[in-house]
């Protein structure tokens, strides 16, 4: 079931493995999905009985603690228990990134340890980085010796699936649109979604159903998504919605110029996507060429499809003009935006 080497284990597999077999001596957790990392930590902690936890558990942040200290702990025998659990966080020496702290790490010591790990110790290294430097000797050796655990961010589908399953276990229903909205507002980020779910589940405690309204009022939209809905309202020429969204943002004390810059940026992206797509660029190509997040490109593709290039162009130019006015006249930003949206929706109507 658990193989060393290229196989990367998922969290669910780890759960099973830890339950059935005795743990291996070295694990390497790769990826930055905070929720998964938390889950993995929890799994390992359960290896120790609560009364042991204070004596036989060590958590070392290498940003401030030298590696030698952690290794020292790993090499000592467990105290009043069967095993010792050692976490190592922020092993920057595994990556090609430049050193940020002046803590000196004894990498050679780790290599030595990896070649002959202490059998009573479980060493878990959390590498929350996108990429490790595979050329380094220590990285190569670690990858060879350690059991690899996957904590990389899930794809949109997988994350959605994960959430749906989780809710099923909790015996709570979620409306499909509500799930969609949740995914959209959290940008399919699992950690965010799970955090928001706690609130949603509490709210739906009695009804056992998560509705769109609940998601709307409980799940936070970040500024970009707010802008995204604003873009939607502008393009749909929904004057009422656009105006009230804008006011809401201003009330949150967002800078009008900042809002405008993001709006302009969004429309530029829509135009770029629209034009490039016609020239045969796929979603992946677009994300690469435009240096944009793939999910953002995906949403932009969906949005761009609904509008003609002419309308996009018109809105874009209108916004650029709005920016000019914001910077040259002393008029109220909200009023200027209202005039823009009114003019825009009238011209195209």
């Amino acid at each position, binding site marked *: 079931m658990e193989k060393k080497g290229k196989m990367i284990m998922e969290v669910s597999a780890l759960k099973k493995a830890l339950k059935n077999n005795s743990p291996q001596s070295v694990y390497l957790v790769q990826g930055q999905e*905070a929720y998964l990392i938390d889950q993995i930590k929890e799994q390992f902690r359960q290896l120790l009985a609560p009364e042991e936890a204070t004596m036989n558990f060590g958590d070392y942040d290498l940003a401030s603690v030298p590696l030698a200290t952690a290794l020292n702990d790993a090499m000592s025998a467990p105290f009043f228990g069967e095993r010792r659990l050692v976490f190592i966080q922020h092993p920057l020496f595994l990556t090609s990134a430049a050193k940020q702290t002046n803590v000196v790490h004894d990498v050679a010591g780790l290599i030595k340890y990896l070649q002959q790990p202490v059998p009573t110790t479980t060493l878990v290294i959390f590498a929350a980085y996108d990429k490790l430097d595979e050329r380094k000797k220590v990285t190569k050796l670690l990858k060879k010796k350690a059991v690899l655990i996957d904590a990389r961010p899930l794809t949109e589908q997988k994350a959605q699936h994960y959430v749906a399953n989780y809710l099923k276990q909790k015996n709570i229903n979620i409306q499909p649109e509500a799930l969609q909205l949740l995914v959209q507002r959290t940008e399919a980020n699992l950690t965010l979604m799970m*955090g928001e779910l706690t609130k949603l589940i509490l*709210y739906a*405690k009695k009804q056992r159903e998560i509705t769109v309204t609940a998601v709307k009022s409980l799940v936070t939209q970040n500024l970009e998504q707010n802008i995204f809905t604003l873009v939607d309202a502008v393009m749909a020429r929904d004057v009422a919605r656009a105006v009230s969204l804008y006011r809401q943002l201003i009330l949150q*004390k967002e800078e009008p110029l900042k809002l405008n810059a993001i709006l302009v940026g969004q429309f530029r992206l829509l135009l770029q996507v629209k034009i490039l797509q016609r020239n045969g660029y796929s979603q992946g190509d677009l994300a690469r060429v435009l240096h944009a997040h793939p999910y953002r490109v995906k949403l932009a593709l969906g949005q761009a499809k609904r509008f003609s290039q002419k309308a996009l162009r018109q809105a874009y130019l209108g916004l650029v003009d709005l920016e000019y006015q914001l910077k040259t006249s002393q008029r109220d930003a909200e*009023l200027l935006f209202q*005039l823009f949206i009114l003019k825009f929706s009238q011209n195209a109507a």
Partner: protein
Amino acid sequence: MAYQALYRVWRPQRFADIVGQETITQTLRNALDAHQTSHAYLFTGPRGTGKTSAAKILAKAINCPNLKAGEPCNHCESCRAITAGTLNDVIEIDAASNNGVDEIRDIRDKAKYAPTSAPYKVYIIDEVHMLSTGAFNALLKTLEEPPSHVVFILATTEPHKVPLTIISRTQRFDFQRISAQAIYSRMADILKQKEMTFEEPALKAIAKAAEGGMRDALSILDQVLSFSDNHVTLKNALQVTGSTTQQLLGDYMQAVHTQTTTKALKLLQQVLAAGKDMGRFIEDLIEYSRDLLLYQQAPQMVEQIELGTVDGQFKQLSQDFTAPALYWMIDILSDSQKQLRFTNHPDIYLEVATVKLCQPQKQQSAAVPNVTKQLTQLKEEITQLKQQLSQLQTQGIKQPIKATAKPKTRRKETQHANVAAIFPVLDQATKASLDQLKSVWTELLQQLPPQQRALMHASKPVAASPEGVVVSFDSDFLLGRASSNQAMVDALENGLDRLIGTAPKIIFVPQEEWPQVRQSYIEQHRRGTQKTTEAKTKSKTAPVISQAKSLFGSDYVEVKDD
């Protein structure tokens, strides 16, 4: 006892009292009920939406021994102490004035000790965005591994200034702006309990001025109450908010519309005499004009803002004014607004602006390039239309004569070839456009849903220009179905936009009629451009003959045509 402001007397003491945040309070109550409270909360939202109130109630509820459905009892010792602010274990900190690392370190150190008189230690940190970076980092450490007996409640109006690392450690609730309707009913409720009477429009005006903040609304109400005897009148309310009545604004705009300068100036004098702030008056006017514009496009929204007090005059005005005129008025008003800042005589600028506004539109056109531009555009459009009409007339009259009678009758009962639309396309038709279209036509049809594809199956593009494409149909019946299917036409145009980058207008024509339409176009075209050449060919022979006739007399001239 000293007088207490309304918003303090009426600060909500139960979750149920918090207006307009039902989802949030419900969630919090459920959490309390199930003992699943988080160790850190972040309440965000505009001012006066209930953040601090919710935080205080939460602090009470967590520590209340008689918790009922998530609500604190407000009678027990700890509840009363918290309300009075005397409980040692509930610590309120204003981060605006305690923003240093030291203060937060102090919290961190004290948080370790168990609470003395209540089950939980609750820290309420208001305006948390004011903390310094160092303080945030110190706080973060505590939030990462909080002692089990501590709950943090952070409140802020500007969540984007709070570091993400902090936000991700908390359960975040976004408080929404309270709707004017909810504010209105809350105020009405309070007044009823105080046994005071009120004029409905007065409360509406206050609710509107509060812009979604309950505290603002109650402060204004407080001021209004201070100079009225247990009766809230619109007049007092407007005096406090400083705004002019809708009635007066409406009259002013009416005068502007009818261009009665004297009346407008008189109204202005009235406002001046009432001691209103001129800046405020201009602002009101701009807002009124904007509302008129908004009303033209989104009537429900205005009604919502004004709490359904849209009167007949407003509706009439929104119909009377054209949008460009309103834009122009807003321009003039904002200009005057700018000038007001640099003058000691605001009334002069206002009077000048009034006179300007009252001038007839024609003279305004010089000042407003937009209007002139639109006018010329319109003129151009009219001439174009006229041309098309004359084209149609010559076309429409002559063509049927040439055509056999049969198609003429047939056309009446079946589908017309839309000659007026086709000809402009043919004017610019190019072989290249047609080829391009033909090459993507099958691909285009593939993109349609099967039903529409079946409809379009018997079609093919026969002429194309960058602006339009003529599509011929084998069957009249299908043509009828196709051209009445606007959704499909849209889909086709969008598809073309995707494939070739332009969205040409699609015009359908029956296949049988197509040769004829083309023929008549060619003829018309020839008539147009060749009128001159025809004349020339005629003149080639004719002048010779006429000259000969004049030289020799018509009797002697014999015209032989060979």
